């Protein structure tokens, strides 16, 4: 093995500290037996119990999970189709069009979706508008991951299936889908985490009646950062972390981003 410089280790450590100290503070204070985030008093599960009895918070969580599941299922279906089409037809414009929402500033996407829903579709903002918005920005991520997986494959495999008697649908079901499955699952898990975490786009498209976890947290800290916010943040963090770890297990190209 190549000898690694201690400076490299040190800088890696510093980056990790920089990234995770704020998160660690949130986690630690969610167990703090005090109403204030000022000083450590003692260990408690109290704030998690408060959380479980907070009706508004539970409703927001239910909304978030419902939207995340629906958005990831639909975005995965559409994104997989897009990824296959991009790889198969070698189109110039389609990859750009599919991937742009991934790179576009969220605020732009949020505002444009808001205008689209209200002025073009005359849609009442609510769960449906949030769902559509989430599907929009998840498709690109799925397409990137699926395409990255296909790009590493010998294309004559799919021709061989046709050649050996499989119809296009049989080829997809028996050959293409099993081969890209890791990327599809990884794309779905990524979509789920993106959806459940999203604030900006949700903020623009949720309207007044509907809340999701990030929106709920934001409305709570407008008053004060209570330890209950720390507790819900900790849970959200755990869920996200778990999903990302699962996604990278299924497909390494998630780590590379664009394959």
């Amino acid at each position: 093995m190549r000898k690694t410089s201690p400076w490299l280790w040190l800088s890696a450590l510093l980056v990790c500290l920089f990234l995770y100290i704020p998160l660690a503070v949130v986690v630690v204070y969610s167990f703090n037996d005090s109403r204030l985030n000022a000083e450590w008093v003692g260990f408690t599960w109290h704030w998690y119990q408060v959380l479980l009895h907070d009706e508004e918070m539970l409703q927001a969580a239910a909304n978030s999970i419902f939207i995340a599941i629906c958005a990831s299922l639909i975005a995965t279906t559409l994104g997989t189709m897009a990824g296959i089409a991009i790889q198969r037809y070698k189109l110039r414009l389609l990859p750009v069009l599919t991937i742009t929402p991934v790179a576009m500033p969220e605020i732009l996407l949020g505002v444009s979706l808001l205008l689209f829903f209200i002025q073009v579709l005359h849609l009442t903002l609510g769960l449906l508008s949030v769902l559509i918005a989430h599907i929009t920005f998840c498709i690109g991520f799925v397409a990137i991951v699926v395409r990255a997986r296909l790009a590493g494959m010998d294309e004559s495999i799919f021709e061989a299936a046709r050649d050996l008697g499989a119809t296009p649908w049989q080829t997809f079901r028996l050959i293409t889908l099993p081969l890209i499955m890791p990327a599809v699952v990884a794309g779905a898990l990524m979509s789920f985490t993106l959806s459940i975490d999203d604030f900006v786009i949700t903020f623009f498209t949720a309207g007044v009646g509907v809340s999701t976890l990030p929106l709920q947290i934001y409305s709570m800290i407008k008053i004060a950062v209570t330890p209950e916010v720390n507790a819900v943040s900790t849970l959200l963090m755990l869920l996200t972390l778990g999903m990302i770890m699962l996604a990278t297990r299924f497909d390494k190209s998630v780590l590379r981003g664009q394959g």
Partner: protein
Amino acid sequence: MPLLELRNVSRHYGRLSAVDNVSLSIEAGEFFTLLGPSGCGKTTILRMIAGFDAPDTGQILLDGQDLADTPPERRPLHTVFQSYALFPHLSVAENIEFPLKMAQVAASERARRVRETLEAVSLSDKADAMPQQLSGGQQQRVALARALVNQPRLLLLDEPLAALDHKLREQMQMELIGLQRDLGITFVFVTHHQPEALALSHRIAVMNQGHVEQLDEPSKIYAAPRNRFVAHFIGDINLLDCTLLARENDQLRLAIPGLGEILAPAHTTAQPGQTGAFAIRPEQMLIGDPAQHRDLPNRRDGVVRELLYSGDVTTYKVELANGLHIQALLANVKPGLVQFFEVGDAVSVAWPADAGLFLDA
């Protein structure tokens, strides 16, 4: 009626003409080879036969039926791909079973045929292995087995041996010949490797820039190439620019600038005055001491400039009086003697009047 017929088939990609008005007939049971350099259109033809590409104009007929409206999965032919294209998520046995499943063969029958086919390619012990666990030669066998298991009318092979090393390649060539003979399935084989084409085929179509330069048996292609391209592409050959002076009985009198007149056999209808090339294989050249071969009509003095020792034979590059280089090949049959001549030796090269041929194209 031929098994497969191409009638005036053309295929263009933009302004590039990949296949240009090609007509071919392939008989049942034939081992037919499309041979040519890369980009000559041979793979495009194969893809059009398989149904992955379609001709712009012209027809492809199988048993007299136009294939234009038949998708790849309904054509009674299979392809062996250059990359083998084995399904990486299926085991060896499942790969071979795939075409039987698609043809809705009953499960018990499928199991029997997979077993028999695995035996035929001596891979019974690898039935449950995954493709990436096999060596290149074994993967090649699985690809062949998978393409042959439901007895197609026609087998298309796209440079199937290109990825194998030399020894394995020769062994697979032998197996292909045996397989084709035993099964009686028609093979259409694509390669750029001319020794392979000569060794395997019943007939060869030599292709260049989208059209067929010559279609013939291997021995005819080698011994009587129709034009400079074929002569140059198949094997090694000396091509000397010359002018046809006269036809005398069954001989031609040719003038080579700087070398004077030579005699060549009259295989052509070319008329005196026509320019062309005199083509002769290195192994038809006799090389000897300056005093040797005085009885032969075609004889020139020269100096050995380079030699290439290949064990069984040595190829000598001899510079003639007019500065031309010609190659002569000599088998190293004398025991204990590595080669007959050294670089710088004065030699004579000679050839009989019935060797070589005049190419007017």
